[in-house]
């Protein structure tokens, strides 16, 4: 029952889910920091530096969690999925290798200068180091998403005796779903970071922080959110169209379509039932799914029954998709309303501040939901249409995997709790500090 395959999958999912939380924040937060620092260099107004100093602390903590969980990831392939590398290693290997060479070293080295070097290098060089870190995190996302997209929509390879060989690296890197996934992920990161910044800034305002910095960061983050949230919906739609073309069975699961249909409705809610191959409790808008996916009211959507035995489990994909899109729509609403209020009245009423605090980690939930749709939607294949998962598993004894799985889960729960508590604690601390200290303190990090 609890075999090595299942445990390995759970462990992999747990590790990557934990890892992705932190890069999702750092990729975009790094760009926020570049902006703050750049504005400070240009205007010399202390408030930008204060914004920078507060958020760089949170960045450092988030980055550290991203690094340690990333190191775990880089061992996962060998410990739990050796078959994976034996078969797709010729393609996955160099992509991961380029990530290490072009991104990891650069961001890790310049991070040192960014965090500790402000007084040791010229202001320009320090801003440059911040910029390099931001470029580095974005490059990481570039390579890893290229690899992940290749697993979804493989191109540019030859297959000999079950082993993949590269034929055209350009086609491999820029495979058909890569562009959509990359931009969608960058926007997801932008939204996650803006709602984090907005949430924590709102929390500080609620705690009666009368300094200028939290007001400023609130404004900046809401502006970014109001711009990105509608874009995300648009890009997400394009992403869906791309998936419809390459992985129709995934879209059928996302939409809960069992029988091939013309003029398929959009299901706002339903409970898919894989035994009876039908949905219960449907709430539907007629013809809308066909309209969105084919741009014709009577367009055809292939149903899951055409892919019997070769389609993903329906429930997680179906619900995951609704959670993501639901949060996406909520983000648009919240961002537009709060930004508009801020523009009209230049402050936010308490209920709006509270709403923003509630939304602090909404980006995480949407991102995880989106990834579950993507990854579970690829099942039962590892490489879409070509390699099935069960061909790949390790032969480590299942008790060992169970042991490490329990270990990871416990550790992650503790770390996640500590992370979130520390964020709010840092925010409360900042409220009490009248002006920022300019003396060295505490293990060499900014206070």
């Amino acid at each position, binding site marked *: 029952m609890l075999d090595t395959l299942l445990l390995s999958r759970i462990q992999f999912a747990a590790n990557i889910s934990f890892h992705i939380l932190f890069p999702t924040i750092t990729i975009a937060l790094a760009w926020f920091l570049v902006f703050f620092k750049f504005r400070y260099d240009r205007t010399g107004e202390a408030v930008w530096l204060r914004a920078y100093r507060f958020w760089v602390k949170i960045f*450092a*903590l988030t980055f*550290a*969690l991203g*690094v*340690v969980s*990333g*190191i*775990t990831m*880089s*061992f996962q*392939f*060998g410990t739990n999925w*050796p*078959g994976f*590398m*034996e078969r797709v*290693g*010729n*393609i996955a*290997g*160099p992509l*991961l*290798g*380029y990530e*290490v*060479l072009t991104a*990891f*070293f650069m961001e*890790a*080295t*310049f*991070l*040192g*200068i960014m*965090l*500790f*070097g402000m*007084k*040791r*290098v010229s202001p320009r060089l320090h801003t440059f180091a911040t910029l390099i870190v931001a470029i580095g995190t974005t490059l990481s996302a570039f390579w890893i998403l290229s690899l992940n997209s290749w697993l979804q929509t493989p191109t540019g390879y030859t297959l000999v005796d079950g082993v993949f*060989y*590269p034929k055209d690296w350009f086609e491999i890197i820029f495979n058909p779903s890569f562009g959509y996934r990359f931009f969608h992920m960058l926007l997801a990161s932008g939204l996650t970071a803006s709602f984090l910044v907005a949430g924590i800034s709102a929390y500080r305002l609620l705690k009666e922080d009368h300094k200028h910095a939290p007001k400023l960061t609130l404004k900046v983050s809401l502006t970014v959110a109001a711009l990105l949230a509608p874009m995300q919906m648009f890009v997400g739609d394009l992403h869906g169209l791309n998936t419809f073309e390459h992985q129709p069975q995934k879209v059928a699961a996302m939409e809960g379509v069992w029988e091939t249909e013309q003029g398929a409705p959009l299901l706002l809610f339903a409970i898919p039932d894989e035994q009876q191959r039908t949905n219960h409790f449907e709430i539907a808008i007629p013809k809308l799914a066909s309209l969105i996916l084919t741009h014709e009211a009577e367009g055809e959507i292939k149903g899951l029954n055409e892919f019997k035995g070769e389609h993903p489990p329906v429930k997680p994909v179906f619900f995951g998709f609704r959670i993501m899109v639901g949060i996406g729509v909520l983000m648009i609403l919240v961002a537009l309303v709060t930004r508009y209020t801020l523009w009209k009245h230049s402050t936010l009423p308490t209920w709006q501040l509270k709403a923003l605090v509630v939304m602090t980690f909404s980006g995480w939930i949407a991102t995880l939901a989106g990834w579950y749709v993507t990854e579970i939607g690829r099942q039962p294949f590892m490489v879409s249409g070509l390699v099935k998962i069960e061909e790949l598993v*390790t032969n480590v004894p299942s008790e*060992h995997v169970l*042991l490490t799985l329990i270990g990871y889960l416990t*550790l992650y729960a503790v*770390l996640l709790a*500590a992370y979130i508590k*520390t964020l709010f*604690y*840092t925010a409360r601390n900042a409220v009490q500090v009248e002006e920022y*200290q*300019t003396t*060295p303190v505490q*293990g*060499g*990090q*900014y*206070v």
Partner: protein
Amino acid sequence: MFSAEYLALLYSALMALAIIVYAVLDGYDLGVGILLPGNNKPAADTMIASIGPFWDANETWLVLAVGLALIAFPSAHSIILQALYLPIAFMLLGLILRGVAFDFRAKAKTRYRQTWDRCFKLGSLITAFTQGYMLGLYVMSFEHSLASHLFATLSGVGVIAAYTLIGAGWLIMKCEGEIQSAAIRWCRLSNLIALLGVLAVSVVNPLINAYVQTRWFGTEISLLLLPLPLICMVLFVIQDRVLVKLNRNPSHGCWLPFAITVMIFLLCFFGLVYSFFPYVVPGTLTIFEALADPSALTFMLYGVVLVVPAIIGYTLFSYRVFWGKTQDLSYY
């Protein structure tokens, strides 16, 4: 496209480079972690500040080493990582504890601070021990016997001593006053333990591995190489003398212990590589048999040629930025 043989040599050289650079760099920051005092906050702060700007980049060499194994020798990579499944999990636990404690200790409530300091120390210890343990199992060809686990344990202790040695060397170089004099004491002690460890491994290894024995005693070159272990021993002795001198006058040559330790590391690592070459999995798989598809490796090579010099360049740059004694580091 390059020939497979050439690529196998090149990638194993690169992997060796990544491993030894990792051992030296992360070695010193893990060593500092092992030495962290539990009851002296200012000292702990300074010690951690001395590795602050570097630890993340240091750890990236480990990612590179594993990555290169995976890219260039996938079958060896999967044999080794599966054989070491549990120790790797423990090592990751150690690395995670250490890495997060670094940031949490400066940001969490004062009440939790001691706990994070302990996590830092414990994480460093676990990491060092498991790395040594894995090295031991590797040398024993992943055999499951009492002898092999004993040997691995010995090797784990040896690596703790080695990292403490280089960590203390780092502190002697980067710190002054009280920490520096304490570091000189630590350094002397771990110098002795590391010496014993190296002796033990050098004696045991050829005794249990016939292949290693012929490498060192059975060929013509081996005669030329035999002085190497001797030089290594001499370095340990010089180190001890240098430390005695430094104890009297710490202002001259405080970089010497670190430099000598790096030389010891290089010699030991060379000995290890020479013992097993061309095997990646001792006695089972050579680098030539394990090699991945040459065209993929050629593609990777462009990146290596272009990027590795840049990495070395900006790494040196960052060491220059933070040159000098840690007290001088000024932060906001």
